[in-house]
């Protein structure tokens, strides 16, 4: 980050110089400014693309916690599913009882 800051400072300083120059001097300073500007652009892009190690680690950790939150939600949602399972089992038992009653009536 300090390197980028130095590059920007140098570019800004050259921008305060070249508009006062003419001819070859102007071209030389502009070329230097453009070269530094390219370097700064590349460095900025690289930093934005790759981030810094502490950011990468923090993002990874946050992803893991996010997964824990999703797992916890899924676990809690199982409560309603469990009641539904009990209801389903009782429903099946009731059906079986009905069938037995039907058979007994025939006999």
């Amino acid at each position, binding site marked *: *980050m300090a390197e*980028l*800051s130095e590059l*920007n400072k140098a*570019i*800004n300083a050259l*921008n*305060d110089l*070249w*508009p006062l120059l003419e001819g070859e001097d102007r*071209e030389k300073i*502009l070329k230097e*400014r*453009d070269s530094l*500007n390219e370097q*700064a*652009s590349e460095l*900025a*892009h690289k*930093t*934005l*693309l*790759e*981030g*810094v190690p*502490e*950011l*990468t680690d*923090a*993002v990874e*950790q*946050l*992803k893991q*916690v*996010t997964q*824990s*939150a*999703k797992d*916890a*939600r899924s*676990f*809690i*949602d199982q*409560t*309603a599913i469990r*009641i*539904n399972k*009990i*209801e*389903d089992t*009782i*429903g099946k*038992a*009731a*059906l079986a*009882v*009905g069938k*037995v*009653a039907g058979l*007994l009536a025939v006999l």
Partner: protein
Amino acid sequence: MKSTMPVFMMLIGLSGCASTPLGNIEAFGVAAENVSDKIDSVIDEYNKANVSDRLVMMAQSNRKYVKSDLDPIRKIVIRDSDKKSFALYKANKALGDYSKSLTDLASAGSQKELSLAGVKLSRSLSEMNDQYKVLTESEVDIVSSENSNKLGRIVAEVSSFYAGYKRSRALKEVIIAADPSIQIIGDVLSNQLLKGVIEGRLYTMKGNELAGYISDYNAKVQTMSFSQRKKALDDIYAMYMAMESVSATIVQAQKAVLSVTKAHGELAAELRSNRFSGKKIAAALKDIKTVHKGFNDLEELMRNCETEIVADDEKGIICKASGSDN
């Protein structure tokens, strides 16, 4: 009295967990969404500025150009348009995903869902009782209608408390575990990437353009009238002000990031300290009372509804009116 004390203590304990500030979680979700928008607009502005900067450099040179000289610009557009590869974007997305998972967790095990499960259980018990009476050719109930309604209500109510307890505990663990990462991400996004990289580059790129207009002015100043000079300087000054105000956009994005880290930090501190104010406990107890009343009403509904008990998005758990879809 002896037997009611543990229950009362459990309610107090639950109320402590139940007072997890869900409102703050919501505030956190809104703030996180705001960050996403702000960062998106900053990335867009940064991309446009990069393209403009290349054109500025070309315009400030005396070179003549052909079509292929524009290729590097096209490469910048392609490269920068893939925002998803930016660490900035990834961090922003991680924040957004976390915020959504937190909101989802806060609404897990809804009372409506558990109530319907209780209703179905009550109905099954009642059907089983009817079948039993047919089988035994008797009029004696094994589970009376009143008891099956009561059982359905109790199961739903206990499940709701259980879900609420689990939810509060999970929220507490998740928020406390996530806080260090949230604080680091907020700090890096705000101070290093937004302030350190983007703000500096935007300022410098605008300065590159401004220098070109100043150079034009200097080259023509000897031949210009006062009014021409004034007009040219007005334009240059407007551009200078635009360059100086670059940080305003960044400050907005920084504020959005800091609102997220602050909201989360407060939430985590509150949960970490386990200090719940009397007001909050009272509010939580009131909530528990309301929940209990809600389940009493459910039992009443199970007893009296002759059609079907359904969940309505606007009215909650209701008895379906006969001869209608709702």
